[in-house]
């Protein structure tokens, strides 16, 4: 775990390599994560989501400059989609962020979504934790361009910013469930365009009609990322939201829930991957898998059979023990 020590000491190449390990789900990831655990909790994660071309990257770029001006370190995680056909990807968010390339206080990482469908790369959460441990104060997480239901960002971000543009639709669109429900802050970008005021009014109405929580009034902020208009206001709202989360004890709650989720997920993943490895040696699991694939046994009976097979479970435990 020399790599982790180097990263914690501030080596950016080591941080980059650790993110790669998380991305390919290397076997040493649990060790890495437990090693960095004591260094976690300092960073605030801000999610940016919205339709393609809304200006997410440009806003992240502007906001980064504003945060840097206050002297804080910034990590950026920029997600773009993988091709469902070739598995390849074009990651182009960096283009909007060139002014920060030579700033040692900014670390930018582009992630392809690979097989994830929720708008975020699966490695985004792990990458956030690594940047947190590395000592970044703010980590800005940008989703792929989303529609209405790619909402993974909610679980990853402390503050979620939903970015819309005037072409986003009429009042009925703002009544729909999904994307519009997850905003802690709304941004109407390209605010110099026709329809921007009308959209902002609709959003205000929606927010006031069904206040998300009494402790936080969701603001609607007009920006023009290209001209750097509204950036300061947006940053102020983010800082206020962070403060509100902390003062009401919700930050602790949020993070507790997140840790719980990670705990359960890690157990699930490790048990499953062990079980699948065991399938190479154990005839019972293999037969069950093949039976299910051929349609001879239904998946539910097959899984109950496996989970009630004591001998097999003993075998599994022995395997897990060996791994330690």
């Amino acid at each position, binding site marked *: 775990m020399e790599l982790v020590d180097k990263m914690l000491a501030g080596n950016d190449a080591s941080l980059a390599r650790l993110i790669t390990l998380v991305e*390919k789900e290397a076997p040493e990831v649990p060790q890495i994560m437990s090693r960095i655990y004591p260094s976690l909790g300092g960073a605030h994660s801000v999610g940016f989501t919205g339709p393609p071309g809304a200006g997410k990257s440009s806003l992240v770029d502007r906001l980064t400059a504003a945060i840097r001006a206050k002297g804080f370190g910034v990590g950026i995680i920029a997600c773009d989609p993988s091709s469902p056909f070739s*598995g*390849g990807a074009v990651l182009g968010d960096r283009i909007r962020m060139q002014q920060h390339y030579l700033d040692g206080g900014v670390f930018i*990482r582009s992630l392809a979504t690979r097989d994830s469908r929720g708008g975020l790369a699966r490695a985004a959460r792990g990458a956030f934790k690594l940047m947190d441990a590395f000592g970044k104060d703010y980590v800005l997480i940008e989703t792929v361009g989303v529609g209405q239901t790619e909402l993974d960002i909610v679980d990853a971000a402390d503050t979620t910013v939903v970015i819309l543009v005037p072409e986003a639709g009429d009042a009925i669109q703002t009544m729909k469930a999904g994307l519009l429900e997850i905003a802690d802050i709304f941004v109407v970008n390209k605010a110099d365009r026709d329809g921007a005021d009308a959209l902002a009014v609709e959003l205000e109405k929606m927010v006031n009609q069904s206040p998300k929580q009494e402790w936080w009034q969701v603001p609607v902020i007009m920006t023009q990322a290209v001209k750097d208009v509204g950036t300061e206001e947006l940053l102020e709202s983010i800082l206020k939201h962070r403060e509100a989360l902390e003062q009401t004890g919700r930050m602790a709650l949020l993070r507790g829930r997140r840790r719980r989720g990670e705990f359960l997920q890690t157990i699930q993943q490790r048990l*499953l991957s062990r079980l*699948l490895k065991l399938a190479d040696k154990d005839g019972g699991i293999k037969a069950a898998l093949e039976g299910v694939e051929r349609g001879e046994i239904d998946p539910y009976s097959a899984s109950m059979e496996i989970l009630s097979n004591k001998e097999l479970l003993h075998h599994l435990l022995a395997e897990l023990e060996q791994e330690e």
Partner: protein
Amino acid sequence: MAEEKKIRVLMAKPGLDGHDRGARVLTLGLRDEGMEVIYTGLRQSPEMIVQAAIQEDVDVVGLSCLSGAHKTLFPAVVNQLKDKGASDILVIGGGIIPKEDVPFLQDKGVNAVFGPGTSIKEIATFIKENARKN
């Protein structure tokens, strides 16, 4: 359930020329070959390219230059990668590169130079065979 390693490529335009059609065609071509290609845009200094390559932990840096400054810019990228301890990153170049400059560039550590007319397949095959495997 470890995933197989995806090849990551940084595609960059060092220097001052504004012609990125070639770099874009190759970006798409390599995407279709299953690679993850980070496109960083025009007018990059070697420092910017190297910094991006380190943060993105890429396996390959592709440089496209049509301005004639390749003999300065390409070796600068190679040297700075070396300084950062990243000499295992494959560096390939393209653009308008006179044939007689190719040995010079290879001598300076550019792994391969692909001129106009090269097929995407040829470049993809070279990358797959020569990019680091870890």
